């Protein structure tokens, strides 16, 4: 399995991952990373928040993966290039059996795929400490170089949190309960800044 050597996370994707974890502080959350992969580098442009309920059930997960694929096809430029997860317990830095399975599934399609774990103990990220851990598909710390979002991204995250932006975020779980909620674009959140 080839390991990614560099991962670049763009500000919008970075903010969405953290806001997802902030919206459900007591739960494990996960999602997909969309962007482009070329050579040995992955560029993450967008995050698609998926679940804040159980990761153990496959039907809605499969549905979400298929929908994300179609979404990428219709956008033309994007593909699924990664997976992110934040665990229920803040000092738990393991991907866990379900997370590993999802990450492997994504890597079977995109071998370069990034796998990022949000470090629950460092939920006040700074530009130097972004609070993200890149992992291998088998859950070990990866040697991949994570190119950090700059200070502006962290500032943007702070600005969202200031006005309670996390409550506007919509993941696939929330979308399943209300079809009007836009989980693909998260327009309510992104237009609030």
């Amino acid at each position, binding site marked *: 399995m080839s390991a990614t050597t560099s991962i670049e996370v763009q500000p919008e994707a970075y903010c969405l991952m953290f806001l997802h974890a902030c919206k459900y502080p007591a739960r494990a959350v996960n999602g997909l990373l969309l962007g482009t992969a070329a050579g040995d580098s992955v560029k993450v442009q967008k995050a698609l928040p998926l679940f804040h309920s159980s990761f153990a*059930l496959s*039907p809605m997960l499969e549905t979400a993966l298929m929908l994300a694929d179609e979404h990428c096809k219709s956008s033309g430029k994007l593909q699924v290039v990664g997976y992110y997860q934040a665990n229920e317990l803040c000092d738990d830095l393991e991907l866990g059996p379900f997370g590993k399975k999802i990450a492997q599934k994504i890597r079977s399609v995109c071998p370069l795929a990034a796998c990022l774990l949000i470090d629950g103990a460092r939920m006040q990220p700074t530009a130097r400490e972004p609070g993200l851990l890149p992992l291998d598909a088998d859950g070990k710390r990866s040697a991949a170089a994570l190119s950090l979002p700059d200070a502006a991204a962290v500032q943007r995250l702070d600005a969202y949190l200031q006005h309670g932006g996390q409550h506007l975020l919509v993941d696939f779980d929330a979308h399943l309960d209300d079809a009007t909620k836009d989980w693909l674009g998260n327009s309510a959140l992104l237009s609030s800044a």
Partner: protein
Amino acid sequence: MSALAEAEAACAPYGNEPSRCGFELSRSLLLAVRESRAHRPDLVLKFGQYLLRSHAGRLGAEVWAMYEQVYIALLHYGRRPRAAGSGAEEPSEEMRLASEYYSLLAARFPDSMRVKRLEGMMWEAKGEYDMAMADYDEILEEEPNNLAALKRQVALLRARGKPAEAAKRLAAHLEVVGSDADGWLQLCDLYLSQAQYQRAKFCMEELLLLNPMAYIHHLRYAEILLTLGGIDKGGNADLVRTARKYFAHSLDLKPRGNLRALYGLLLCCAAAPKGQKTAAEVEELGACAQKKLLEEYGEAKATSMLDTVKAMSTALLS
């Protein structure tokens, strides 16, 4: 619109600033959070502290419930991750205020088990899990059926990364109090987190018996069955068929806005073995689920999802 969403909307024109919202709005907002049992410590802290500071007298007897509510929110903010706490740090401002509120409550209700539980929660927030456990044990010795204390213990074990032990304790409780629906749901969750699908399935069966009209239980049950019978578990036609029945029944109980059931039906129809004598019916059901999904998105005016779902379901059913 829920009472909480209504109360939040009422505060929005005042910039969500408690002092501009005033006593009545702030109070009804916190009441809505309490009654909906929503997890919104951010609101509780902001509006509750304003009420306790400026209007404690006007709250009357409600003031004690308010102290309790704000106290729990303070603990939520004051808690530190274990990794960061070296032990000798200054207590945070939140924890200091929480102690103050605790003293007020303990002085007013000296022998209350409810206040004892609050003390346990303070230990939890400080990371002193054994002290917390001892407090809850003490309550349970006095009142063996104190549900709140029992559930704190289960939550505590879970927070310490011991889901198996948490499940054991909860299962022992449910053996006695089989009608505790919240308990079964929590136990189902615990089993799922450990990939014990058969046990999780049993919990859902109990819930189906307790409340046969709840679409959400049928849905969850079907999701467990389909996970068990799914492709990556080898594929089991019987389980897929049973899952299909429960998805369909869930849809029957909640025909509108039940996207999970519709997607579930699509997956079941796609996973059904080809060339059986029911193939035509399965195909019809799949097409029906697809049509209903597109109707839902049409009504929701979710145009980007409409095209995505059309492509996805067509690929799935072909």
